[in-house]
């Protein structure tokens, strides 16, 4: 779908907890055309510092608006957190590749594994997956209870939610990847299972390994620093396997951000 630069009205910019915010922006165009896994490039402020746009995955796709879920980390996300509803936000999108799902006729076991803020893009995917009649499991892992997000938004939509915290303050004590392993051991091979993951690189690497060992197909959403977000600057490379020379660089913004886990050189 054509990439557009839009001024979208901010409908809501809500603080969810200490460092997490959710923003809803009005755009019929994005609501109709953006797909789970894709992202938008946001001009967080009109100033020269921060200057570059920042990439955010689509978190939820609504009727005539979309949502992003973000963590305040540095100057870009700080500036974004200070934007008020009613203001216009300069965004470019839809950008990048999408998660691929099955068609309705062939349901799957879809397992979505999120680490921390990695849940942001997986909510849009979970909703789409459930709609297609998949048995949809969502595993959210985080360091501690206060960093577990979105619980209430996922559960009502026909997904099984599993939570893990490293300190055991909520749900299973341990890593999201431990929960994933346990879950996989209880599932039959019919219908086929597919794993989707987003989170810190170390987690993605483990998920990719688990999937490979069990010959399960796995799609990961990668992050890299971005300047243009559209494939021009060659600033966001990821090393992927290449038959002839061993490896090549692909661009996270244009060839990704969703990659087949087997393709990536971890």
């Amino acid at each position, binding site marked *: 779908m054509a990439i557009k630069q839009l001024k979208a009205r901010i409908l809501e910019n809500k603080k969810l907890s200490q460092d997490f915010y959710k923003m809803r922006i009005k755009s019929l165009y994005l609501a109709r055309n953006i797909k789970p896994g894709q992202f938008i490039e946001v001009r967080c402020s009109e100033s020269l510092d921060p200057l570059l746009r920042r990439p955010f995955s689509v978190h939820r796709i609504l009727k005539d608006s979309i949502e992003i879920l973000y963590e305040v980390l540095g100057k870009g996300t700080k500036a974004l957190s200070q934007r008020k509803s009613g203001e216009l936000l300069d965004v470019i999108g839809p950008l990048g590749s999408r998660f691929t799902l099955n068609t309705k006729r062939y349901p799957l076991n879809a397992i979505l594994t999120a680490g921390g803020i990695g849940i942001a893009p997986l909510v849009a995917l979970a909703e789409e997956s459930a709609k297609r009649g998949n048995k949809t499991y969502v595993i959210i892992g985080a360091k501690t209870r206060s960093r577990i997000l979105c619980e209430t938004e996922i559960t009502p939509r026909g997904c099984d939610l599993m939570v893990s915290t490293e300190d055991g303050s909520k749900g299973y004590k341990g890593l999201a990847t431990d929960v994933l392993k346990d879950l996989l051991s209880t599932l039959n091979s019919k219908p086929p299972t597919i794993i989707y993951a987003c989170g810190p690189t170390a987690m993605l690497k483990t998920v990719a390994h688990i999937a490979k060992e069990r010959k399960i197909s796995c799609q990961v959403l990668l992050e890299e620093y971005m300047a*243009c977000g559209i494939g*021009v600057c060659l600033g966001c*490379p990821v090393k992927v396997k290449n038959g002839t020379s061993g490896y090549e660089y692909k661009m996270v913004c244009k060839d990704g951000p969703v990659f087949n886990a087997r393709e990536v050189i971890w």
Partner: protein
Amino acid sequence: MNLAVKIGRLRLKNPVMVASGTFGTEYAELVNINSLGAIVMKTITLRPRSGNSPPRIVETASGMLNSIGLENKGLDDFIENKIPSLTKVEVPLIASIAGNDEKEFVQLAKRLTKIRRIAALELNLSCPNIKYGARKELIAHDEKETYRIVKSVRNATGLTLIAKLSPNVTDITKIAKAAEDGGADSISLTNTFLGLAVDIEARKPRLGNITGGLSGPAIKPLALRMVWEAHKKVSIPIIGIGGIMDYKDAIEFILCGASAIQIGMANFVNPKVSTEVIDGIKKYLTKNKIDNMNMVVGGLKS
């Protein structure tokens, strides 16, 4: 109103170009490419280069560091695939080339001279992210080397030649003069400034390549000073580059002696910036009752 400028044999309908490495047809949906003066394409080398390891970019105060490392698919791919794909682009295409040595520069220039779609060559003598040949030094850091390379390419092609220089030198006027003496039709000033950024928690450089090139509003005053100095010493047209975000920045460069300008990383921030700059220049000229852009070039009062 006359916005046209001449650079060597190349005639531009307006002085606004997009800089090498910062623009591509990916922007076709977001900006009217055919309103540009010209497009300077991403630098190519004779053979493909895979580029530097990530991270390749980091934002700094009002700017960014990059260490892309001239990732490109090489000359053959450029001629066979890239150029034929640009059927919808009607504005002059300027190829940017970098060789490891004199022979490669000449080879690149000769092959590209035969490609009708190429209107001019920009010699990238100044990418801070690769080392040229055995000397491990940028060509544009040395007067004699600059003269020698420009001269050899001059002898190999009739195309308009633009020498893109490095700002990381003691005296820019000497290098600018060497390029002029070598036969360049124009010089573009400047490429990025060599810089470094540190992650204090990891105690590591933020870029995979350790150092990178600084661009953006942070470098504008530095680039302006170089254009102004060079303008006093050379008579060929100068193309001003560095941190241009709007038409006011462009006019600053023109007043300091630039006959044309290139817009770099601002394209990332606002893909429509180049057309906005063209409109802004027109308004500025109208407001000041000037009907020829060239009347403003070097018009800085003392």
